[in-house]
């Protein structure tokens, strides 16, 4: 017999016979200040969750349902929901169905039974994801959705907790969480071992250890096994009990009074101290990992039966009978009535509409625009006070890229108090390349955050801040450092609007110092030239300025995109051009630009830049490639009489299609110059794009499929000015690329 059916029959039989598992706790309702009503409400949530699990299997068997990973055995988390407030943001483990139901029953006017069933059948009526994905989540219940399958939701929970403390001092216009809220974040015992989880737990402790408020309650739901691999006995407690900066609580997830009592204690501790804690909840896993999982392959029969004998619902039934006036029959009545109504509601929801077209599925990748307060920009007095005479004078003179970005960040932070910078060494030091110099002193440590060395935590901080209405501008110190953290963008930040049907958003601008060509500071990790990992993330914008003027204007446009359109923007800054001043000859200062004052018309999102109006050839490029192509443009004209237009793509993703076609329309040929690798670079997409949309001859030069070496050969694998010239000549004379 199916284990779910065995557990069900066990419940009916054992409650009917009064055959309950031995009590695990002696605390009574009175001891912990609970009411009988609270206890029954928790039980109802547990029963609803259990019956939903059972129904999900029936729905799948009938071809109507698409998700069977259940919460059975973890229903103790309903007691944790009861101990928290409805407006405490909760980043939930995928086995927290009972938590969400309990919270819904506690809130006003919710319909958790139908809502959960709609998500099982992937109906477009599903109020959280619109039928896109089975996720726990709810806007009115402050439960941001995520899949939580690999513990990648922990870093953003840390960020959200940080944002609550910060919002008290710098109130964001679109603040979402109350000042006295605490963040709850749950995960399984196996997930605790993910480096992402370990990093987030460490970051929480580190943050607390240095005295920063962080009202965060981690909940580790310990059922003792991760799919088929057991956690060593006592491992979770051993791992979490003595973490610096993290208070440890443990509760029995099989006993709802104990779970509620300890959760309440932990909740009050976190809310009062505004420090992080972890609540270790012991529980069991029933029915295996998911519908198709055969536990008997890796567990002995007695182990399975031992867990089933400790079904938390049996413990709850005993507690209800012992602690309230409910009889065994009453308990069975609640259980049976919920079973029946869930079956009825399930029958209704299978007829509800599903998503059908690609456009419907895609619709929530990009969230809706939001209304923001209008701003006239910082006043002259405020600017004078922040910049001082020296900076104001410097603005009137041509400056390099890094200085322009620095000025722009100052102005943006002055204008929008919800902008927060975060990254390694960006504060006191002012950044490895000085881009954030003086910002820390001018805007304070709360808005210019020197983070610990963990990119997942930096991006998690940004996600949490973004969810609470801030406009975070996290910095990844070098492009290569993004890779150990990219899932925070790919799997978390970029999917939030998609999973929530546009109801939750986490706008941000991720500044990344990257790309190659650094002459004196070589090596792969400081000169990475691959952004393939970013290019295919749906909805993500990649901006890449090549000069100081563009950088300023594009950064302003990026902030507008994040603030008003709730977009996630990666702002890729070419390190090698940070301090570059000259273009063609030493001392010509042609790569310096006067800082565009606030109010200057910005190139809008998707608008490419051009240099020259020649029609023999269009050179389509970006970043360092643009710089070298402009150098080549002069030589091509002077030495070979070739007239060209150099097109700076500026916005690498999504590809500015129409603007590219317009900019190259008058040209006879197209040469693509890409400083990233031959494989996976923009050039591939551009070749395909022009192949599909143009009949002009097109060729490309790229970097080799190689890592960047340290030392004199730093540029050996990269397109040089002369390579561009050679490729252009080849294209013009033979219609093909150079060999």
């Amino acid at each position, binding site marked *: 017999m199916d284990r779910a059916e065995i557990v069900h029959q066990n419940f009916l039989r054992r409650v009917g016979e009064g055959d309950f598992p031995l009590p695990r706790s002696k605390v009574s309702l009175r001891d912990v200040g609970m*009411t009988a009503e609270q206890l029954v409400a928790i039980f109802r949530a547990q029963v609803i969750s259990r019956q939903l699990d059972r129904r999900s299997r029936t729905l799948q068997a009938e071809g109507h349902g698409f998700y069977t990973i259940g919460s059975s055995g973890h229903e103790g988390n309903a007691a944790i929901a009861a101990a928290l407030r409805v407006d405490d943001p909760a980043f939930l483990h995928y086995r927290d169905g009972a938590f969400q139901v309990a919270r819904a029953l506690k809130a006003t006017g919710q319909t958790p039974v139908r809502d959960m069933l709609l998500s099982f059948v992937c109906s477009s009526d599903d109020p959280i994801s619109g039928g896109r994905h089975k996720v726990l989540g709810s806007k009115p219940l402050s439960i941001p959705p995520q899949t939580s399958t690999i513990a990648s939701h922990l870093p953003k929970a840390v960020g959200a907790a940080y944002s609550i403390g910060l919002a008290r001092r710098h109130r964001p216009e679109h603040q979402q969480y109350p000042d006295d809220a605490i963040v709850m974040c749950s995960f399984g015992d196996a997930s605790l071992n993910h480096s992402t989880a370990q990093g987030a737990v460490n970051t929480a402790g580190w943050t607390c250890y240095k005295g920063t408020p962080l009202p965060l309650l981690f909940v580790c739901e310990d059922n003792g096994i991760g799919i088929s691999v057991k956690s060593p006995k006592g491992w979770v407690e051993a791992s979490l009990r003595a973490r610096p900066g993290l208070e440890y609580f443990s509760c029995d997830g099989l006993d709802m009074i104990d779970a509620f009592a300890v959760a309440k204690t932990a909740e009050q501790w976190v809310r009062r101290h505004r420090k992080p804690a972890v609540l270790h909840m012991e529980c069991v896993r029933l029915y295996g990992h998911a519908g198709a999982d055969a536990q008997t392959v890796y567990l002995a029969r007695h182990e399975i039966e031992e867990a089933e004998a400790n079904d938390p619902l049996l413990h709850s039934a005993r507690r209800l009978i012992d602690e309230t006036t409910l009889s065994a029959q*009453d308990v069975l009545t609640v259980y049976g009535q919920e079973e029946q109504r869930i079956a009825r509601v399930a029958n209704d929801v299978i007829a509800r509409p599903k998503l059908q077209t690609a456009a419907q599925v895609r619709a929530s990748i990009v969230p809706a625009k939001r209304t923001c307060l209008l701003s006239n920009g910082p006043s002259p007095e405020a600017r004078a006070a922040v910049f001082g005479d020296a900076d104001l004078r410097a603005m009137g003179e041509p400056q390099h890229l890094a200085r322009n970005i620095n000025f722009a960040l100052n102005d943006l932070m002055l204008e929008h108090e919800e902008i927060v910078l975060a990254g390694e060494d960006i504060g006191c030091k002012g950044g490895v390349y000085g881009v954030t110099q003086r910002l820390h002193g001018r805007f304070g440590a709360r808005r210019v955050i020197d983070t610990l060395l963990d990119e997942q935590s930096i991006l998690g901080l940004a996600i949490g801040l973004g969810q609470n209405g801030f406009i975070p501008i996290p910095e990844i110190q070098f492009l290569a450092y993004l890779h150990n953290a990219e899932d925070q963008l790919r799997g978390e930040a970029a999917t939030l609007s998609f999973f929530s049907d546009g109801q939750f958003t986490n706008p941000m601008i991720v500044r990344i110092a990257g790309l190659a060509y650094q002459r004196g500071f070589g090596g792969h990790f400081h000169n990475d030239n691959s952004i393939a990992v970013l290019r295919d993330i749906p909805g993500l914008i990649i901006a890449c300025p090549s000069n100081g003027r563009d950088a300023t204007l594009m950064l302003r446009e990026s902030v507008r995109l994040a603030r008003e359109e709730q977009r996630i923007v990666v702002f890729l800054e070419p390190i090698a051009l940070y301090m570059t001043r000259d273009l063609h000859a030493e001392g010509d200062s042609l790569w310096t630009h006067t800082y565009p004052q606030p109010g200057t018309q910005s190139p809008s999102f998707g608008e490419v830049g051009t240099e020259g109006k020649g029609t023999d050839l269009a050179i389509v490029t970006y970043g360092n490639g643009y710089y070298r192509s402009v150098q080549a443009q002069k030589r091509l004209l002077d030495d070979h009489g070739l007239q060209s237009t150099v097109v700076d793509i500026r916005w690498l993703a999504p590809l500015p299609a129409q603007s590219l076609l317009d900019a190259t329309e008058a040209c006879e040929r197209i040469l693509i110059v890409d400083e990233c690798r031959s494989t996976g670079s923009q050039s591939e997409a551009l070749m395909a794009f022009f192949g599909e949309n143009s009949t002009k001859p097109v060729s490309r030069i790229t970097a080799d499929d190689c890592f960047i070496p340290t030392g004199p050969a730093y540029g050996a694998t990269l397109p040089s000015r002369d390579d561009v010239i050679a490729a252009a000549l080849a294209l013009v004379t033979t219609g093909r690329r150079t060999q």
Partner: protein
Amino acid sequence: MSRKTALVVAPGRGTYNKEELGYLKRHHAHHVELIAGFDAERRRMGQRPLHDLDGAERYSVNEFSRGDNASGLIHACAICDFLDIDTDQYEVVAITGNSMGWYLALACSGSLAQQDGFKLVNTMGTFMQDGLIGGQMIYPFVDDAWREIPGKRTALLSLIEEVPGLYLSIELGGMLVLAGEESALAAAEARLEPIGGRFPMRLANHAAFHTPLQQPVSERGRGALPVELFGKPSWPLVDGRGHIWYPFETSVPDLWDYTLGHQVVQHYDFSAAVRHGVREFAPEVIILLGPGGTLGGAIAQVLIADEWRGLTSKTEFAERQSSDPILLSMGLADQRAKVVSRGKAQTSNLTPWANGRSAE
């Protein structure tokens, strides 16, 4: 044969009209003791007994629509109807009501004993009549097919924002009930396009229910109707926020507080009550207690807006009603016949969710 599951809806004010005169006499002679008990309370309050009112030769709008009379009459009709639901055929899975119908729903659910339920509705009706603060009017935002006219509801809500002292009182299917002092209602009327010579329609003898103007009534109610009158419901109740109160776990002080507080002074979302009732309990039918059947239109409009079981228009609803009715109005003779037990004068033998037990 398995019983059909039913969501029970109790009607609000304005449902005992000329056609309903004699309703108690016609349908509820077997509940004579219960009605006598209600009349004892009426006499104690110095009010005309229901028996007299219902047995009057002539219907008078002035007298019958007064809060102190209408409330008691409608309560008696509805409670008696509830008791007459054929439990061999129907299983009640949840109860809700519109406006004053919330008090009736409480009484039906067993949250208040029969006489206490009557006392609640009669007392609040009397207080309303004593004060008669402001008034109500009704205006639709659906077309003839009962489909929402795009932008109309939003425009009405904007009107409420713009006219000082005008409030949203009830969300009533495809209509909104607006309320306020006379000046606010007049200002709203001046801006609302007349529809079919009926709308905007003033509701006679109605106060500005479910608005902050009723704060004095709320306070009098709290003073006159102690929490001890209340108990836990035996069936799930869906209130005027679409919130569900479950039998064992209902906090009685919270229920009392909502009933005499929020419910009196904040808008009543009957649409949410019906919508959440059908969404969360998936009943096979909706039973609308009598008297009258006018609330059936609003219920149908909610179902159409929700595309409940594929209903998308008034025509489809009417077709469904003629083949396999989804809505059974006990105030309409032909539908009543489908609900009541034949020839059986019964007291309540309904099977409640909670078996009449509390958790305490």
